[in-house]
């Protein structure tokens, strides 16, 4: 197309100037990308820290003292639900870890280990050393409990329940849940081990679930059956147990939205002003072309295409800059223990929307000068040189 070829020539003719325009747009987009990804990552990290290694939904028998019967039916349904990411049945009980001089209170948490889809509590992620339980007598141990017992991986420990039933467990791994009180008492075994130990039979204490969208957990909850094999089910969401945290998260996300809107606004304005100046600089050429009979429509196209191309170049370079900036931020900004301040959480929709908005803004920034140029009378140019 011929307007395209003129626009291209206008851009490539003065490469230094075009480069600085592209750079100007790119810097704006880079800031937007950097701030956006940082905010998203902080938010995601916060959510992950608070509910990442705990159930979003707990399904149990409505009768407090009763176990959950025929939970496998429930699991079949959860498996088919694409909104569900992880689930496992649990069986729990209190024990004492016996040492020659003292008994340490502990909680045995039995969960399924058949696939990574069962890892609601994030044991794999929180495993400091060792391996996950593989056989019936294997157990994970909380880091602080391990220290109290002065034992280590591969050693056997003896536990006893309230009835005095004894069991020997082999420590295969150490976990750090990030919560001291839990680390001081936690023992994790395979579901079957806990079922047998505490007399659950084929039942479970609960089925715990993690979902993709933690803020819409109720939707999943409400689609669950209210009764199962004659028992009434009780479904609790993390929101019900974390009301305060929830409002804090809500406040954070609305303030970060405001920040992003203002950053975006300034980026759009910057793009528009940079572009309208450059486009105006070509009005002399447009005057000459109009004297030679270029149509108003083609004159508008020349500017729109020019703005569009500069927008695409600037926005794309801005993405690269933004990612580079964020990359170096997480490389250099470290916490005291050397781990990055945030783990990156990048939403494709945010990145592509930022790019698109920048390109659209740039193109629109070309509209005003383009319309001015179309109204331009060539004799103005001819007269004023």
């Amino acid at each position, binding site marked *: 197309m011929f307007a395209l070829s003129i626009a291209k020539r206008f851009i490539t003719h003065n490469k230094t100037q075009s480069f600085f325009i592209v750079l100007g747009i790119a810097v704006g987009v880079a800031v937007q990308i950097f701030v956006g990804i940082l905010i998203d990552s902080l938010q995601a990290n916060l959510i992950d820290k608070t509910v990442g290694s705990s159930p979003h939904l707990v399904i149990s028998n409505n009768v407090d003292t009763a176990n959950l019967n025929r939970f496998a039916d429930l699991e079949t349904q959860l498996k088919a639900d694409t909104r569900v990411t992880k689930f496992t049945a649990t069986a729990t009980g209190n024990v004492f870890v016996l040492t020659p001089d003292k008994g340490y209170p502990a909680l045995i948490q039995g969960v399924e280990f058949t696939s990574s889809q069962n890892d609601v509590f994030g044991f794999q992620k929180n495993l400091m050393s060792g391996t996950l339980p593989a056989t019936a007598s294997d157990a994970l141990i909380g880091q602080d409990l391990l220290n109290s017992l002065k034992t280590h991986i591969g050693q056997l420990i003896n536990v006893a329940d309230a009835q005095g039933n004894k069991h020997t467990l082999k420590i295969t791994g150490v976990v750090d849940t990030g919560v001291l009180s839990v680390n001081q008492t936690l023992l994790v075994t395979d579901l079957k081990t806990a079922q047998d130990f505490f007399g659950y039979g084929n039942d479970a204490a609960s089925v715990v679930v993690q979902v993709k969208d933690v803020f819409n957990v109720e939707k999943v909850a409400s689609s669950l059956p209210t009764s199962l094999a004659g028992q009434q089910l009780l479904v609790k969401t993390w929101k019900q147990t974390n009301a305060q945290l929830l409002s804090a998260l809500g406040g954070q996300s609305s303030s970060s939205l405001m920040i992003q809107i203002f950053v975006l606004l300034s980026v759009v304005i910057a793009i528009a002003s940079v572009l309208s100046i450059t486009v105006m600089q070509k009005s002399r050429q447009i005057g000459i072309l109009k004297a030679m009979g270029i149509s108003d429509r083609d004159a508008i196209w020349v500017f729109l295409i020019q703005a569009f191309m500069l927008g695409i170049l600037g926005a794309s370079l801005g993405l690269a800059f933004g990612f580079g900036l964020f990359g170096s931020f997480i490389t250099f900004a470290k916490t005291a223990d050397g781990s990055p301040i945030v783990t990156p959480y990048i939403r494709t929709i945010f990145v592509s929307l930022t790019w698109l908005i920048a390109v659209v803004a740039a193109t629109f920034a070309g509209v005003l000068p383009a319309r001015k140029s179309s109204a331009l009378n060539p*004799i103005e140019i*001819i007269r004023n040189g």
Partner: protein
Amino acid sequence: MANIIALQQVNKTYKNGALETPVLFDINLNFAAGSLNSIIGQSGSGKTTLMNIMGILDQPTSGDVLINDQNIQTLNKNDLAKLRNQTIGFIFQFHYLLPEYTVLENTLMPALIRDRKLTSAATMRAKELLDLVGLANWMDKPSTQISGGQQQRTAIARALMNNPAIILADEPTGNLDSKSSDSIHALFCTINREFKTTFVIITHDDRIAAKTERIVEIRDGRILNNADNTLVFKNI
């Protein structure tokens, strides 16, 4: 001979806010197809204003402009642009070449606007025209890296590109030395004779005007002398 340009009762008043500057008064003027004409007059007399109106770059305040017997008032903006592109070639006092393009590309621009793409036929014609104006060896130079005379000759080649019926030239050699000026005007005569192109040349230079078929003199916005210069012209 048929009139290719006709101005009937043309008046022009520039308006800048409340300030009105009347410049042209009741102009009645015809140019025959294929003729070679000059317009002379003092600075500020209205020559450029008249040319802009003939070249439909500007509209008269009142009166009619006919190009090829067609009243331009009946044409829309697109038709006017098309008419400018295909019927009229402009040569201004300053060359107004596009700095982004080479000599050849500048010459091709009217054809590019007409065809909306580059054709090999257009490229061939552009090269011929550049050869004609003596720029065969400068075609691929950026238009900013040639001399003033060469730039003006490029502008001439460009004006001829679409083989327009009319060439309007506003002091085309005003910035050139007399030798370059003479060769360019000789070129105009050649083109006029060979292609039957109508020329209207604005000039300050009586010497140049004397070499045209007809001299139109304008004073204070009125046609003063509309002399047929044919006799003198023929004797050159």
